[in-house]
């Protein structure tokens, strides 16, 4: 919403300067987006005399003008047909920003002749579309004076950003009322006297809606004015409209736009001589359409409100009129419409057709239902002033819906809800200034405030006008008897895992929750239910089933930028279905591409392998308190991993925590990446909930009293046997004495039979009662060999 300082002054008696007006507007919720002052912007454009205009030596259509700017004489090359010796025009020196083009004017040479500035047209100055010639001023215009100021353009233009609940401020008067309430001046009275009609309108108006649908257009007021002269509007009207970015068209159309922006009352004018029969407001009919004023043809569907005559639809009610009955310079008889249209239907129709219009903007937010006939009277007066003519009696169909309602306000609520302690008298003064009326049931909101629907709204009105800066800031009350952490155990896991993985050298990425469906399918997703109906692009059309596709895609982009290796992780949601709440789980996943260890003077390069991914996953679990011994590892993982170089992480026999391993070569091909690429996925939500602990005390520290002993064993076993079976068997050999057992070497090749592998275990014995004798140690060792042999068929390597 735009308006000028002078326009505001029509409604508000104030001596506030534009700066104070702007501050107040923002403070009461009418946020100022910009204040423009054309006199300032165009300060360098001066009134100048063309002393002499000679033909350009090298161009037929150009003239070389000697211009007196009041302070100097400059040479300007000009292409305007009306440039002539002796004329007075507007001159822009080099350096001026030309509003019509947005460009900074420079000195130049045009066809070999130097040009030091520009004689400008109205279009170049942004005040009209006139570009036939340069601005031609009266002979008495003072040479050297500021042109914009002389032309009356020295007026601040405010642009405010209105929230959708304030249709009343879509007219300058509404803005003035708010400012007056905020103490910035006095709202001038708006006296509207009915104008007596001289005759009955030959065009009647009917509302023709099915029962129960009358609110589509509850009220339609019309009036004929005959004998009008249409044509260009007077300068003051054109200037006002141009100042707020509207294009003057003709007096009748400009009048409707003016009333729309002045009083928030949209109007429409028909050329009455083109209307066939009466005017009917009704729903559209299948197949019906009309050519709108914007030159486009729109279907008028059965759920849209159409304004029609005997020839069919003329326009869409509250949105846009049609060309067939549009006013032109030849219009002699005009039929003016002031109506009410259903906000929801107006919004839906406008949205469906993609029509943005000033009328739609207002009707969909809510136009004052008590200012229909009065708006028509105002429009009549203005039309008669501008175009002459003789008005008919009003034609009224339907009636305004009852807008009256009242809400009780407990005066202490302004303090107990709004936090601002205001005397009742001030509360009352504010509400009255805004147009509220005290009624037996409470405060009745004015007809132009459809947004006021309860006591909280009244509190807001009072607080907003009093000023939010008057609300004292209070500290949040603290509950001293209550201590709780800010995060839940599950949220704590997320925080810990992120830092644990970063500690491992992986870098955290945040990638989109949606990926390309083709990528989702690679990772077991891509189901119909998780497709977006309206994606940004086909690259982002499906909710991700795993964090891997987003991470791999990010890694590929890094490779494209020239990075050779890298490690990324993400902790975030992945989606198994569109089911609310349970369809998504929190996962922690990471990938490593290329070298896990770069070649350096200390050693050769080592490519990332499945064990790096395994280590990442185990480190994350360890950070969550799940040590390696708690995790079961099984060979094989989901289909997107290398079938022979991947594993499943389990907790107990049933709970799958995730997977790790090399990614399947087909995944690499799909993402256009050269490997090795390894990764892991952990579903954090699969972890059992943390147990509540009564206290934080640790168990007593009991270091072993007797020395531990380590013994190494080299077994030879079939390749098919997994190492964990040997370890498990060794550990079981003496559960009491054996504290640890683990693999420390794996060897296949010379000295080991084909199809076999040598696996070396280190077993640590920790006695608790006394130091072990050599014989006892040998006895345990023998049990280890026996147990491993029995469980796996392994033999001790000799």
């Amino acid at each position, binding site marked *: 919403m735009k308006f000028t300082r002078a326009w505001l002054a029509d409604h508000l008696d104030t001596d506030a300067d534009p700066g104070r007006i702007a501050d107040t507007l923002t403070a009461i919720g009418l946020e100022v987006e910009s204040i423009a002052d054309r006199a300032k912007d165009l300060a360098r454009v001066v009134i100048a005399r063309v002393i002499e205009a000679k033909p350009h030596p090298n161009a037929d259509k150009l003239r070389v003008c000697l211009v007196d700017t009041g302070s100097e004489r400059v040479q300007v090359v000009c292409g305007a047909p009306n440039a002539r010796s002796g004329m007075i025009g507007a001159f822009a020196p080099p350096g001026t920003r030309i509003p019509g083009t947005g460009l900074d004017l420079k000195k130049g040479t045009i066809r070999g002749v130097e040009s030091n500035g520009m004689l400008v047209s109205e279009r170049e100055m942004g005040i009209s579309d006139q570009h036939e010639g340069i601005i031609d001023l009266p002979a008495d215009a003072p040479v050297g004076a500021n042109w914009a100021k002389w032309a009356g353009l020295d007026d601040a233009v405010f642009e405010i950003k209105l929230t959708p609940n304030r249709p009343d401020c879509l007219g300058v008067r509404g803005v003035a009322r708010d400012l007056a309430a905020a103490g910035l001046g006095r709202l001038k009275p708006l006296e509207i006297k009915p104008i007596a009609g001289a005759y009955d309108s030959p065009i009647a108006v009917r509302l023709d809606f099915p029962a129960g649908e009358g609110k589509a257009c509850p009220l339609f007021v019309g009036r004929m004015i005959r004998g009008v002269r249409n044509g260009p509007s007077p300068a003051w009207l054109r200037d006002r409209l141009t100042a707020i970015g509207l294009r003057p068209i003709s007096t009748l159309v400009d009048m409707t736009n003016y009333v729309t922006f002045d009083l928030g009352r949209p109007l429409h004018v028909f050329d009455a001589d083109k209307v066939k029969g009466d005017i009917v407001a009704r729903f559209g009919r299948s197949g019906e359409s009309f050519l709108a004023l914007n030159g486009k043809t729109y279907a008028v569907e059965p759920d849209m409100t159409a304004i029609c005559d005997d020839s069919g639809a003329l326009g869409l009610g509250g949105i846009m009129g049609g060309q067939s009955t549009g006013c032109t310079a030849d219009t002699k008889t005009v039929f003016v419409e002031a109506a009410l249209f259903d906000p929801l239907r107006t919004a839906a129709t406008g949205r469906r057709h993609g029509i943005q219009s000033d009328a739609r903007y207002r009707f969909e937010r809510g136009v004052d239902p008590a200012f229909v006939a009065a708006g028509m009277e105002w429009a009549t007066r203005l039309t008669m002033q501008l175009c002459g003519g003789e008005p008919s009696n009003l034609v009224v169909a339907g009636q305004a819906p009852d807008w009256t309602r009242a809400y009780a306000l407990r005066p202490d609520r302004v303090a107990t*809800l709004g936090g601002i302690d205001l005397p009742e008298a001030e509360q009352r003064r504010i509400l009255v200034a805004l147009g509220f009326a005290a009624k037996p049931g409470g405060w009745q909101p004015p007809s132009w405030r459809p947004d006021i629907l309860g006591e909280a709204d009244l509190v807001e009105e009072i607080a907003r006008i009093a000023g939010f800066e008057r609300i004292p*800031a209070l500290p949040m009350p603290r509950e001293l008897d209550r201590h709780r952490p800010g995060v839940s155990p599950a949220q704590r896991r997320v925080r810990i895992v992120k*830092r644990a993985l970063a500690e491992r050298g992986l870098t*955290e990425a945040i990638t989109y929750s949606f990926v390309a469906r083709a990528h989702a399918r690679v990772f077991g997703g891509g189901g119909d*239910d998780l497709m977006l109906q309206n994606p940004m692009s086909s690259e982002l059309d499906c909710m991700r089933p795993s964090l891997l596709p987003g991470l791999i895609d990010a890694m590929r982009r890094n490779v494209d930028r020239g990075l050779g290796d890298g490690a*990324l992780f993400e902790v975030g949601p992945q989606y198994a279905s569109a089911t609310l709440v349970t369809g998504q789980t929190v996962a922690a996943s990471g990938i490593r591409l290329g070298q896990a260890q770069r070649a350096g003077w200390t050693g050769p390069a080592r490519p990332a392998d499945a064990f790096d991914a395994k280590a990442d996953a185990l480190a994350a679990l360890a950070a969550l308190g799940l040590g390696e011994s708690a995790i079961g590892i099984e060979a094989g993982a989901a289909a997107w991993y290398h079938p022979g170089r991947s594993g499943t992480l389990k907790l107990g026999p049933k709970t799958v925590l995730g997977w790790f391993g090399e990614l399947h070569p087909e995944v690499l091909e799909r993402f256009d990446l050269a490997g090795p690429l390894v990764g892991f996925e952990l579903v954090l939500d699969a972890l059992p909930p943390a147990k509540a602990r009564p206290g934080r005390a640790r168990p007593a520290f009991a270091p072993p009293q007797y020395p531990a002993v380590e013994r190494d064993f080299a077994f030879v076993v079939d390749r098919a046997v997994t190492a964990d079976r040997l370890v498990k068997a060794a550990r079981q050999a003496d559960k009491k004495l054996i504290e640890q057992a683990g693999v420390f070497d794996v060897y296949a090749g010379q000295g080991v039979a084909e199809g076999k592998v040598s696996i070396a275990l280190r077993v640590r014995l920790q006695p608790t009662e006394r130091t072990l004798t050599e014989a006892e140690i040998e006895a345990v060792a023998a049990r280890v060999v026996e147990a491993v042999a029995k469980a796996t068929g392994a033999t001790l390597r000799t």
Partner: protein
Amino acid sequence: MDRDSIDRLGAELAAAADAAADTAALEAVRVAALGKKGRVTELMKGLGAMAPEARRAAGQSLNQLRDRIEAAIAARAEAIRRRDRTAKLAEEKVDVTLPVRPTAEGKLHPVSQVIDEVTEIFAAMGFVVAEGPDIEDDFHNFTALNIPPEHPARQMHDTFYLAGGAGSNAPPLLRTHTSPVQVRTMQAGPPPYRIVVPGRTYRRDSDQTHTPMFHQIEGLAIDRSITMGHLKGCLEEFARAFFESDQVRMRFRPSHFPFTEPSAEVDINYTVENGVVRVGAGERWMEILGCGMVHPKVLEMCGVDPAQWQGFAFGMGLDRIAMLKYGIPDLRTMFEGDLRWLAHYGFSPLDLPSFGQGLSR
């Protein structure tokens, strides 16, 4: 043996010890002097044949001789050991200017860091973190928040809709704000509530300042007598703590949201220095969040009696405050996973925000 002879022998053997080039030569000197057949030993053996008087005197001299030689050998041994150690150490010299073994340094994403910072601040004010699903329904995202089906706000949001299950006439959607978690929290149990909700949100929008996914943090405080004054205090305390400056000022402007009444938009003061925004300085205002007192209708729809309970809610762009605090110029770079960018703007895992050691360094 007379005294002079003993002294000469002592001098001779001590000189031999001093002259020993290495441990082996020194040992030869020792054997030659003090070994079973060493010269001193041989002299000692002669003592037994002496008269007691002469033996005492000679024994004393010989003991002194032995001590002298032992001392000379020990001194030489120590000198050799030192010399050899020094030589060995010189041999072991490495080029300490060589680089260390490479280790990869991982970083946390700035949004994760800022979530932890914000959590720290609000936890200190008694808030707990709540969460909810990204995939939501119409009721939680709109209806329960007093946004009826035809409300223009629904158009403003540019919602992503999912295809959803078969036959559903109201398809699931991606939440356009974190506010549905307010609804879920209120439905899950009785008041009071004091929660913050950091999380992913989605709007169908993409340009320099919008990405189709972004992060918000929502706050909700419902109790018996929470007012706009507490809302102001809470947010002012937050802004000063987060931007780590007492100079941060806030401006509350009346605004409009369907789910709050009264509603406000909040600006913070900033200035631009060398093209970089600095918050908490200067006289310019920048909007950073929307807030207000929870609309009675929202409370009602969530099963909370608005006659008994009231309070505030706020919503703020997390990516945006991260950008403001840490000088990140472009939102779109946040979600590209560019390792160079993450190395530059990311955080060490050791940088755990806390009030004790400071929110950031």
